[in-house]
């Protein structure tokens, strides 16, 4: 069976503490329940969650949607946003968890990456060093989301052309973002050429695409 690996990189730095992280958790719940109603996703989607604050953790290794149970997600009181280190960990995971096709084994679908932050990378040097590596991973889609007023689009634009901005990082806006993510994952099942990116569904009103 061919898998569609989906990596979620979530900012859990101090600024996410409180309502925001609760909204993210609810969003993840909804994301998972919505995907479970999608027959393609139910048979193909595998999800991994990597959180980043001062520490970078893969809180959920790549797991089949069918057997997935959402992990505990916590935020520290304060501290930096080590986005660069998170992307570095992602590179390692892409190398070890994603199956490349060859003569005797069927490859996975090209992986999707969704990254969400309410700030900017604190480890800017590491971030800039890892960006070309990520671009070389031939992902089917790399969607970065800047949530809230303090989130800075410009750094995310260095990572990907697909940057969306949420004016506010409140529960309902984050929820509509996660619903959009679940709709986007449904489009991964496409026979695409080797370098083409997936086409995303139109985002809801609260989610602005940054050009």
């Amino acid at each position, binding site marked *: 069976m061919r898998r569609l690996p989906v990596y979620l990189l979530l900012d859990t730095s101090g600024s996410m503490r409180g309502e925001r992280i609760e909204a993210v958790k609810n969003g993840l719940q909804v994301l998972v329940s919505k995907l479970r109603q999608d027959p393609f996703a139910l048979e193909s989607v595998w999800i991994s969650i990597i959180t980043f604050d001062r520490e970078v953790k893969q809180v959920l290794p790549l797991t089949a949607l069918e057997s997935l149970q959402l992990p505990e997600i916590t935020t520290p009181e304060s501290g930096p946003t080590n986005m660069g280190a998170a992307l570095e960990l992602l590179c390692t995971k892409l190398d070890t968890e994603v199956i490349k096709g060859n003569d005797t084994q069927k*490859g996975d679908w090209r992986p999707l990456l969704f990254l969400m932050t309410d700030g900017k990378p604190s480890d800017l040097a590491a971030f800039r060093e890892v960006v070309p590596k990520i671009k070389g991973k031939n992902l089917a889609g790399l969607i970065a989301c800047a949530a809230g007023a303090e989130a800075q689009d410009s750094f995310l634009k260095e990572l990907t052309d697909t940057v969306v901005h949420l004016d506010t990082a409140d529960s309902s806006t984050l929820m509509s973002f996660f619903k959009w993510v679940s709709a986007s994952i449904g489009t991964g099942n496409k*026979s695409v*050429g080797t370098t083409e990116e997936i086409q995303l569904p139109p985002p809801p009103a609260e989610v602005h695409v940054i050009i």
Partner: protein
Amino acid sequence: MGMKKPHEYIEALLTHKWEPVPGRQRSLFDAFVEEEHIRQAVEQIYHSQTIIVESWKERSLIDDILQKHIVLPNGKVNKPYQFRLDKDALGLQELGDYEWGIPEGLGIAYDESTGTLSGTPQVQGEHQLTLLFRLNMHAADKPFTEKKVHLVVNPDPKSLWQNLPSDETDKYWQPDQAALTLPFGNKKLVIASKRGRSHAHEGKFRDDSFGGFFDEEKGWGIIAVADGAGSAKYSRKGANIACSAAVDSFKELLAGEKLAALEETIKGYLASQDEENQKKVSAQFIEQLGKLAFSAQGRIRQEAQENGTDIKDFATTLIFALVKKYAEGYVISSFWVGDGGIGIYQAASGEAIVLGTPDSGEFAGQTRFLTMADIFANSAYVNRIRFKVVPDFTALILMTDGLTDPKFQTDANLQKAEIWQQLWNDLGGSNDDSCKVDFNAAPAEVQNALLSWLDFWSPGNHDDRTIAILY
């Protein structure tokens, strides 16, 4: 405290609460502790301490269990479920008797004798089960404590697929399924094509196409299948043009002057299969099939230009084969770009001759398309053309990846005769649904049976499916 002897305990108590027993009153103290009402008072203190300690212990152990994250593996509707609480693995050594409270109608039950939760879940969703438990230290009549535990039951994916019609008013609409049957000299051709569940679910179009033609007089026939790229918006038209253009150009070839040269080199080769004749016939096939494929690309480019769009929007794969029977056997020549597969299967010997290799990338769904500019650059297409002479065959099969993915899984398997044999047996009814295509039946019946056969279930494989069989 409870371990101390009564007089030690009382002495400590007095030291703590009053003042140490003076040495001169030692014998007075010894007599004091022996007094009945003092002994009883000490017993009472011991007893009260035990109650406090045991009560706290119980409270704390129960809380440990209540706070423990018990994970029930997710279930699935209509799929047998079984779970047994492993006390040691979960660190629940203090857990004593227990049973499970289960919402009515869920389809699973708790079997006390084996300690397992089992059954076949009937209701999808997130359910709340109750673990009713006592501690090991509890007596059997102690009331249970309740702990809520979640159980996720996934829906049966089969029940989720919708079958929405495609938009018939679209300028490039094509029916959600199509089939063809054609007399083909002393063989018969049947082709069946069905929209995949993933497309039906979203009301999208079937992106596969096919074509077939046999010229009675010249004895030549052509079979073509094509798979439009899921990511390209007009790929169904691309696939459709690819097949029809190949057929049209083939008809032109039969009507034109070039045919004589082709026939001549084939006859030369059949008479003497030496290296020189092989070179000649190869060159002919490369020229003629190359032209057919190139003209198909050209027709797609023309369509794109007329619509003011990019040829990429029409991205499609293409496999076609030209077949003619000679006294020496069947001459089969093919062109293949993209995924899917084409092979000649001989049931008696179990042999399969695969006419090329699929184009595939490191990730699933990656392939090359007829519509790519570099397909015909630097004679790269030469390796895409094959020819073969066989005395006879059971079936010449052309398929899109909607079939090769579930039936062959890997590129290596596509080269294995035993997998082709499995496919042939599968067509003959050796499958979960006992769905059989009887190739001895009337062509219309074969066509309908083949359409039904295409409905087979394979998790994760829900692409459009097209198969052409010359038998």
